[in-house]
């Protein structure tokens, strides 16, 4: 009797144990991967950033904080360029994207998803090729400026390539959907009843926008600024392919120090400074808006 009763109880116990373990078994491989190849690299980056030495005689860990002060003072211009170009590009993307997102959310009707798809389609072209093609459009006598110059609407020595304008416009182009989509999502969510209520209370079109629609879209604007700004500030492909000698951004410096100069400690300290700056921004953002905007639940 006792033996017969034991088997189901054991089974129940095992299934309860299984249920308790199940979530951990499910997340184990994925979170292990993230631990090994996302979090651990931050640790090795921090360690490398405090090393001294050179490529030939080898690097040793010496708590060398000099990399940080040296890196900051040596490359402060490039840090400022990153903030300047990345920040301007984010602002440009916001100003360009907002009216379009507004029109799609409120007036595109049943074709909304078609417009959103159109915003995403260019992303099926490789990022590097897209940037190259953008550069071709901007060449001095290219399809954009060539006709304007021969029509004498632009001076003959007018050029955009190799200037900060080229870099900024490239960045705004590259990360544009990261701005438009969250702004659109927040506009789309707005309860149309609120808009109607404001109209019933005789608010003008502008007042409805200023006092109802825009305040409600602010979370989307901030999400867009974050999603566009972070990659735009760090990017060096646009700067390399569209910019000139004087437009170097910090991402490029990190890449060159790693790949060309093989000065790992300096490169790591620059990357770490950059990461801490972004992290501070992110924490500030999370304090204000929470993670829901990004996780979507």
């Amino acid at each position, binding site marked *: 009797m006792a033996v017969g009763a034991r088997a189901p109880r054991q089974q129940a116990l095992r299934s309860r144990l299984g249920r308790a373990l199940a979530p951990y078994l499910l997340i184990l491989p994925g979170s292990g991967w993230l631990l090994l190849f996302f979090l651990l*690299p931050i640790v*090795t980056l921090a360690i490398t950033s405090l090393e001294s030495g050179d490529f030939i005689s080898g690097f040793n860990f010496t708590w060398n904080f000099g990399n940080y002060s040296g890196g900051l003072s040596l490359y402060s211009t490039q840090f400022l360029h990153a903030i300047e170009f990345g920040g301007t590009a984010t602002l440009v993307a916001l100003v360009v*994207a907002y009216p*379009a997102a507004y029109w799609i959310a409120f*007036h595109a009707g049943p074709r909304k998803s078609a417009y959103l798809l*159109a915003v995403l*389609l260019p992303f099926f072209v490789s990022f590097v090729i897209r940037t*190259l093609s953008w550069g071709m459009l901007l060449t001095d006598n290219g399809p954009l400026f060539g006709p304007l110059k021969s029509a004498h609407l632009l001076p003959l020595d007018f050029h955009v390539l190799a200037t900060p304008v080229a870099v900024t416009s490239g960045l705004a182009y590259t990360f544009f959907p990261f701005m438009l989509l969250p702004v659109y999502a927040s506009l789309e969510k707005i309860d149309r009843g609120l808009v109607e209520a404001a109209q019933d209370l005789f608010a003008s079109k502008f007042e409805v926008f200023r006092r109802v629609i825009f305040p409600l879209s602010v979370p989307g604007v901030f999400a867009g600024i974050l999603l566009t700004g972070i990659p735009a500030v760090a990017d060096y492909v646009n700067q390399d392919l569209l910019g000139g000698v004087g437009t170097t951004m910090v991402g490029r410096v*990190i890449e060159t120090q790693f790949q060309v100069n093989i000065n790992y400690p300096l490169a790591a300290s620059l990357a770490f400074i950059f990461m801490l700056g972004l992290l501070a921004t992110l924490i500030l953002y999370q304090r204000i808006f929470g993670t829901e905007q990004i996780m979507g639940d």
Partner: protein
Amino acid sequence: MASTAVRGKAQSRARTVNWRRRLGSLVLPGYTHLVMLWLFAPIIVMVIFGFNDTHGRLNLVWSGFTLKWFADPFGVTALTNAVVTSLVTATIGAFISTVLGTMIALASHRYAFRGKALLDAVMVMNIAASEVVMGAGLLTLFIAGNVPLGAVTIVLAQVMFSIPFVAITVRARLVGFDNSLEEAAQDLGASPLTTFMLVTLPIIFPGVLAAALLAFALCLDDYVITSFVSGNTLTFPLWVYGATRLGVPPQVNVIGTFIFLAGALLAISFAVIRSWRNRQLARESAL
């Protein structure tokens, strides 16, 4: 007499207001379409210059229409090798990240467990982290561990940055998922694996497929992180980037056009199927 004049004036005023309003209502849609044109302009340039009859390696000036590059898209061996490397690493990377990301999505949809908030925070950090920092960190890790750089490290990196995107995409699909379906299957004696294969997977499959395609696209397109961990192995974006110094051959435009068409066709058919299904569902619920 006077009243008709007033009426006429009022009418013409109404007409100008009407006309002005109509013009005003054209501004925003016109603007939106201009933005769309801007987004597509570089793509149009890429496609057009695939038909350019260039001589030598520079493909910058239009010199006549030709189909010869489309007839010979794999004429540059090094480029073809890079494309093959890209396709292989992206397929493996997308497969692994889809499995691991789906598992995370299932766990966080079904269970409340300790560390869930932490895992979410790590995934948000991963999405928000800049690629330069992740690439640089991975390189220091591989140097510290004496890991040889190449196709394997490329896959390791690509899976790392794809997992969170897969997890979020699949989780979004799971939001409406009815857990009682799984319980019913298990009550009828199905093992957890059978339940997953016969009940859960068919329901969430559209989400999983979308996530897999997203992961594939992310892996295929990545330049920054991959460039840090690739060693001497070249993927398609890396090869193109390297070629910019010498001149990008028209085959790059041709292959870029192929990839664009494949992706666009997939995305459009996805959207069409979804809207068709939504309409079907709406019709059914109306009945």
